[in-house]
């Protein structure tokens, strides 16, 4: 029985270190290769020893696919390919290929230079790893080998994020990675055609949430910033360098443009400048508005947003500053925050979730006095705002995507178990398809019934067409032919041709049957009666009375003979070939019922 097996090494009922193994029709594919933010030991990378204990990974995996550049989807890649050892192809989209190494390098720097970890991958390893990458375009079908093919679909979420369809023969799996079904200021919405895969592996971060319209969120954000700036306050927006930061930049930039505002906006980090460069380049991956207007002006060439310098923080007058990191736990954003916290005109806007223990979390939960290092107490007088900007699909969006792709079954990853449970139930209820949610290391086996293509010879097809009515898509048709299986392909040919091809002689197979008939008359007369009876019953068939006294119906021969013992009984000998089995058996049953009484 053919089957699809899926084993999450990471992201099974969990968020972080996405890594999912899929075996489909004998091909093994690894989807994403991420790290976990919550751990600093071995658990931060997926357990690759699950794949093979001692053999080389390359022998076991046909390809690796990376959905987008977030570290929880690609962070373990250099470790996996260079340290564990994998030489096969790694597929990702062009923007991912461009931005991924920047983030990996950043990650490496923090781990090695700041935390002083040993046995971590090196810059060279990142470079070597990236050499194994094969970049794909949207909707481009890439043949990994003769049978395995993959295709990327647009996923929104971040620049270059893609959903991948993995297909072998008629079996296919779609992996969504992270995606967003509502467009935002710089990216469009995820889209997939009705590809009807056997399995859809979807993220489920917001499995139990239905979000409000993005317009309200944007409006609130802009209004808050605008008000603060108008009153001469300084606005601090702590962000992570990539993804949401660009969206917020565009939002503010267009707003400044529209409203003719003059207050300066600064962006604090060098990393972002490099990434912004790629945003400028990959215009085709952005949303309609940016794509349409980039001829006049590339939206990522910010007019109002300038690079930040440490000294600017003390400048008088209003300003808006984007600073990293996003949770206010260290770095520049914290520095600026300390400087500005004392003034109630100022404002800090947290655009995303904050982990417990960070300054961001503390101020969001209403704490107004913060203990800093060195026993200092910082009194927070500035306004603290929270805005949720997140680029994952909500429950409705996930359902919408499932509806668009029409899969045979769904598998949930990248989410919390409790929430998945709800979504699973909903999916099963509304689409009537199976839904799975394996934990890490748990394998889901999915039996499939792949359709097997069979070639039919034109001659046979035409002959059958000529016989019957027009082909009707909804009704199955009976067709006589010979199935030849040769070199793993199937052909349906006429029996004569099959015999010829295989060099076999034709065997005639005849069935004979005796029917006893009570009839005192002569054999000829009996034959005559049989003839007239059949003639009247079988109106569509050619019934003939041959001169030698026998009766033929098509190619079936009926002979009447006197019974050797009982002259009052006549024996009808019915003989037919194998091909006429249907008609032959019908005739015998007809004759066994006896002849109608002669009108005499």
């Amino acid at each position, binding site marked *: 029985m053919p089957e699809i097996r899926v084993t999450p090494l990471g992201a099974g009922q969990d968020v972080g270190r996405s890594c999912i193994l899929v075996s489909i029709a004998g091909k093994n594919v690894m989807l994403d290769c991420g790290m976990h933010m919550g751990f600093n030991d071995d658990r931060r990378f997926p357990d690759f020893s699950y794949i093979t204990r001692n053999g080389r990974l390359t022998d076991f995996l046909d390809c690796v696919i990376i959905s987008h550049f977030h570290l929880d989807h690609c962070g373990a890649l250099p470790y996996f390919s260079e340290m564990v050892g994998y030489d096969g192809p790694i597929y990702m989209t062009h923007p991912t290929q461009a931005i991924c190494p920047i983030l990996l390098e950043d990650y490496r720097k923090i781990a090695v230079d700041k935390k002083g970890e040993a046995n971590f991958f090196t810059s060279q390893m990142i470079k070597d790893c990236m050499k194994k990458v094969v970049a794909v375009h949207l909707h481009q079908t890439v043949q990994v080998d003769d049978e395995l093919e993959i295709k990327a679909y647009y996923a929104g979420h971040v620049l270059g994020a893609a959903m991948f369809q993995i297909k072998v023969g008629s079996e296919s799996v779609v992996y969504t990675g992270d995606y967003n079904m*509502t*467009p935002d*200021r710089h990216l*469009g*919405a995820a*889209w*997939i*055609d*009705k590809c009807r895969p056997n399995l859809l592996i979807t993220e489920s971060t917001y499995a*139990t*949430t*239905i*979000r*409000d*319209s*993005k*317009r*309200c*969120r*944007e*409006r*609130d954000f*802009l*209004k*808050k910033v*605008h008000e603060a700036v108008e009153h001469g306050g300084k606005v601090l927006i702590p962000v992570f360098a990539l993804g949401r930061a660009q969206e917020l930049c565009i939002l503010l930039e*267009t707003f400044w*443009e*529209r*409203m*003719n505002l003059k207050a300066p906006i600064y962006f604090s980090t060098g990393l972002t400048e490099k990434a912004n460069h790629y945003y400028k380049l990959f215009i085709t991956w952005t*949303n*309609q*508005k940016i794509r349409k207007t980039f001829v006049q002006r590339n939206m990522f060439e910010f007019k109002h947003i300038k690079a930040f310098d440490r000294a600017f923080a003390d400048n008088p007058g209003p300003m808006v500053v984007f600073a990293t990191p996003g949770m206010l736990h260290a770095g520049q954003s914290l520095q600026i925050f300390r400087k500005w916290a004392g003034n109630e005109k100022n404002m800090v806007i947290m655009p995303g979730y904050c982990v417990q223990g960070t300054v961001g979390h503390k101020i*969001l*939960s*209403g704490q107004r006095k913060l203990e800093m290092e060195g026993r200092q107490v910082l009194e927070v007088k500035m*306004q*603290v*705002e*929270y805005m949720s900007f997140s680029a994952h699909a909500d*429950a*409705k969006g996930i*359902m*919408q995507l499932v*509806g*668009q792709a029409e899969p045979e079954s769904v598998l949930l990853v990248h989410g919390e178990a409790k*929430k998945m449970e*709800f979504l699973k*139930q*909903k999916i099963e209820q*509304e689409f009537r398809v199976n839904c799975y949610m394996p934990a890490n290391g748990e394998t889901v086996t999915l039996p499939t019934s792949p359709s097997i293509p069979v070639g039919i010879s034109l001659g046979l097809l035409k002959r059958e067409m000529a016989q019957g009515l*027009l082909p009707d*898509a909804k009704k199955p048709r009976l067709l006589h032919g010979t199935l030849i299986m040769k070199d793993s392909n199937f052909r349906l040919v006429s029996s004569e041709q099959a015999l010829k091809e295989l060099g076999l002689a034709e065997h005639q197979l005849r069935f004979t049957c005796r029917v006893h008939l009570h009839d005192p008359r002569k054999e000829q007369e009996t034959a005559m009666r049989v003839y007239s009876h059949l003639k009247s019953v079988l109106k569509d068939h050619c019934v003939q009375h041959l001169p030698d006294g026998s009766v033929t119906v098509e190619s079936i021969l009926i002979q009447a003979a006197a019974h050797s013992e009982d002259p009052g009984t006549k024996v009808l000998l019915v003989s037919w070939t194998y091909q006429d089995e249907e008609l032959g058996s019908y005739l015998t049953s007809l004759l066994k019922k006896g002849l109608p009484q002669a009108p005499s």
Partner: protein
Amino acid sequence: MAAHLKKRVYEEFTKVVQQQQEEIATKKLRLTKPSKSAALHIDLCKATSPADALQYLLQFARKPVEAESVEGVVRILLEHYYKENDPSVRLKIASLLGLLSKTAGFSPDCIMDDAINILQNEKSHQVLAQLLDTLLAIGTKLPENQAIQMRLVDVACKHLTDTSHGVRNKCLQLLGNLGSLEKSVTKDGEGLAVRDVQKIIGDYFSDQDPRVRTAAIKAMLQLHERGLKLHQTIYNQACKLLSDDYEQVRSAAVQLIWVVSQLYPESIVPIPSSNEEIRLVDDAFGKICHMVSDGSWVVRVQAAKLLGSMEQVSSHFLEQTLDKKLMSDLRRKRTAHERAKELYSSGEFSSGRKWGDDAPKEEIDTGSVNLIESGACGAFVHGLEDEMYEVRIAAVEALCMLAQSSPSFAEKCLDFLVDMFNDEIEEVRLQSIHTMRKISNNITLREDQLDTVLAVLEDSSRDIREALHELLCCTNVSTKEGIHLALVELLKNLTKYPTDRDSIWKCLKFLGSRHPTLVLPLVPELLSTHPFFDTAEPDMDDPAYIAVLVLIFNAAKTCPTMPALFSDHTFRHYAYLRDSLSHLVPALRLPGRKLVSSAVSPSIAPHEDPSHQFLQQSLERVYSLQHLDPQGTQELLELTIRDLQRLGELQSELAGVADFSATYLRCQLLLIKALQEKLWNVAAPLYLKQSDLASAAAKQIMEETYKMEFMYSGVENKQVVIIHHMRLQAKALQLIVTARTTRGVDPLFGMCEKFLQEVDFFQRCFITDLPHLQDSFVDKLLDLMPRLMTSKPVEVVKILQTMLRQSTFLHLPLPEQIHKASATIIEPAGESDNPLRFTSGLVVALDVDATLEHVQDPQSTVKVQVLYPDGQAQMIHPKPADFRNPGPGRHRLITQVYLSHTAWTEPCQVEVRLLLAYNSNSRIPKSPWIEGGEVSPQLETSIEGTIPFSKSVKVYIMPKPARR
């Protein structure tokens, strides 16, 4: 001649003429028929290969064929068709047959038999499809012939089983276009069984080819368009097609469902998987709503558009479209809109500073959450958030249409519309503002909504701001805080964009008159009056102060208690504003002290107000006193002109009339002055120098007449006559002056000739109006015309001179509505000290933004002129697309002007101004004498002269020498 006369006699009784025409027609036919078809025949016979034949056919198809020779050509084509083996040639012939049968005046029934004949023997699918197309052309040409239609439908049905999708497509098209409308028409006696066209087409809804499915739906829609009532059973079939794999099928199916829902809105359909039943229109509405979240944006646009026209839908279904249940971690959450509403009703302002502000409230029962709503839920929420702006615009339009028909829905959709004001695409923003304006009589804005609306006032696009002002003009505001907020924001807008002044004043005028009771409590604050202290008198020229006063005075019109709150200077300011901005400040009945204004009782109709009377009287005075001595006349004219000009400044609605009359009077004054010159009394050669005044006067009169003719909208023919008459006088004056000042007679010959031509021209153009011009210059001139024609130039001049002196002052009748064209250049503002630097020899683009008022046909008349410091002038013709029409009589020009010059040593200013191009010849075709076509089109479009009609703006530029 005699024969001719005789014939004419016959004509009157027997009408031979018609016969004669027929004869001519037949003659023509004989001449052309053989040539055309014969040439084709020869060509086709010559052709050795199919490629050759195809070439000949292609060549042939380039030329049109006359209706008479069509049949011959068709015969030859058919003949060739039978012989031809190559399908591509047959295809071309088939398509030619179709084209030919469309020829006007040709009845194609004769070739139908042949076409059907060849159809039966044809094997190639492509040719078959083309032949069916031809049959379709024939069939549509003969809509009355039932028998032919029946036959064609039969043919189509026969070929419906073809294996090629193209043929099936065409068959369905044929059925859709020709399928019989009424069954009763066909007689039972005939062998043709009445086919149920709908059923046949409906069967192909499940064809295996998506193109055929689409064609089937289209055919069905075609049937509907032709007036055939579709069966309700189609509804279920169409619903199935909504989940088709192909977008074109889905798109067409959405249309079909819409059509059926409009046909049977009230019939009841069951809801699958439950026992309930709902109205068909509701069900269809739900289904179309579902398509708003389709995968293909083409379908989404289609669905969103159609939603707008489903007005019979029940209100609770309609309101569902705006409903989206939010939840977070399985707990019910309120939408931002609901929160805003609650805050508003609890009377508190949003703190918005807590993280948990939007914290989810109650738990939701997991079973009850329906993630994929069957039905209308949230359709517009999705549509308005769509990725493609086409969908968003369609959704906004649909919202508008539905809201117009349902006030309760209008109230509900307000939040969403307001949100659209922040869309990233300007077009969408503009559209939603317009939509809001259209439904504004159904709605009242809450304070928080008003807040969002007003935030848009800072938009840098003038279009958006103006649209918003228009919106505010007709909005209902619920609280006095709302009014205050609006006023504050508008004033902020005023300081930021001073050019919006008029628009803002107008907006406040309506805002005040709509909400008198809300303005009342605000008055002390707005006027900053104090119960005990006198406050400083505000500056009367401050536009912001005027804006506040406009609001208050308009509110005071219907709120008699308000003037009690005014301080002394307010009354003075009222009097001043009532004079200077009378269109914005209404007449108020002020208590006691303002008797003058209260004397203007409402019993006097507006058109009889004193300023108009004054205008009339002063003009009357001038016209009646024409026989006064020259000195008196001159003084009176000067006085009147001054009065009129002043009046025009004060009363903007009379400005057009006043200016127009003043200009005319000035012309007259100039003429009189010129004729008073001593020049005339002295011998010619002596006064060479002093003739300057007279010739300058003549020139100026000419200019003024052109202005009168082309710068005012609403000028009628009777004014044009007077204007032309004045111009003729000026020309006469010019001629006389030249005659006086030049020695020798030779140049005079030409001038006289020209002048006489002008007179002739005048006569031809305005012959109908001549009776009104009795006793005038022209009247006398025309009397003497035969004499003038024959006399010498010197004599002509003499006659003219006397006549000019005797000529009377013509009364200029005032038109009903007259407006002077005016233009204001908003951009460039001309205040920049930074020169525009560019490399010499290259161009620099200068954005020009101007508003035009009362310009007729600005696309062809308005030009931009750039004057360089070296005296070089350049005229730029803006593209027609650069003009926008924001309101009646108003236009807006937004264009780019390209400047270029050789290198300068230092920056210098160029002048930019707008010109009104005119061409007096373009008026001629209007007169009944000259038939159109005599004046060459070139003449009509050419520019005879230009009138500058805007203030010029100086732009600082600096062409730098190119660096090597």
